């Protein structure tokens, strides 16, 4: 699958919530877009990733 523009291998099927936790993201600090649609915080447990998934994980950075 693709995460933030990089090809990554999905070891096993997992939810967006599990992916964030396993890869060290802070769930309360990021927004997730899966295949072009935002996954709201409350839906991350049920949103499942597959090897065709395209995911963006974004956060705030310093800026004007």
């Amino acid at each position: 699958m693709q995460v933030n523009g990089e090809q990554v291998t999905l070891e096993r099927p997992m939810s967006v919530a599990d992916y964030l936790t396993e890869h060290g993201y802070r769930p309360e600090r990021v927004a997730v877009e899966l295949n072009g649609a935002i996954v709201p915080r409350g839906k991350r447990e049920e949103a499942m990733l597959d090897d065709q998934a395209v995911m963006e994980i974004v956060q705030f950075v310093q800026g004007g």
Partner: protein
Amino acid sequence: MIPNPVTEESVANTPLPPQPAVTNPVGTAAPMPNVTDTPLNLGGHEFESRFILGSGRYDLNLIKATVEHAGTQIVTMALRRAQTTENSVLDYIPKGITLLPNTSGARNAEEAVRIARLAREVCQTDFVKVEIEHETKYLLPDNAETIRATEMLAKEGFVVMPYMFPDPIAARQLEEAGAAAVMPLGSLIGSNMGLRMRDFIQIIIANANVPVIIDAGIGRPSQACEAMEMGADAVMAYTAVASAGNIPLMAKAFKDAIAAGRAAYLSGLGKVTEGHAVPSSPTTGYLH
């Protein structure tokens, strides 16, 4: 004199300018001038501070002191792909501050809308500063795409604050599209060149029905003060503060300059005469 490198400790030890005396020479409290000001209203949200601060490019540990010295209530930030090892800027912003995400990186209205939606998902507020640019040499905003994005985002309930090239016609169109404020540039982003677009900003201010916030290029407190004297509703600064020798102290200087300019605007500036003097002493009773 260039101050020493700024650290959190040096900030804590930096003396601020003395406060003005609170009593007059005979010891009774000086009466406050009768100035009535209304809060800055952005989409129904009210703010006492008229200074919006960029969060970028300086040590994260300085943000809290800078925000406090600036007296700001609104801080901008950008949205980027997350790195798991990065500190989160949100950890360093004091509680109670309104976050104003920008859409920097967007090249058209659709990309701006996408970024705004993602930003809302992170911070759970509806404020967004629309910023649409095509190149990095001048970073000039695309007014046409900005108007389109403003209309789309306003329909989705965002409090839309568009960064714009100071075209008075575009300012009116942004208002009609649902902008909660307009943010014309003073000069190029990050240039510290000041109010180069002064005359057109004045026209925008004269005709605006929403707050006018001077956004880019303000390089010195005196320029922020001038913008406020002209009737701007607020000033946003970032590079001018971030590139100062002592960042929190410069934030305080901007705060004071903006307050002074606002007070001058509310007071009503004196008339300018050209080509002759106006005597300030009696023109009779001379000793000759």
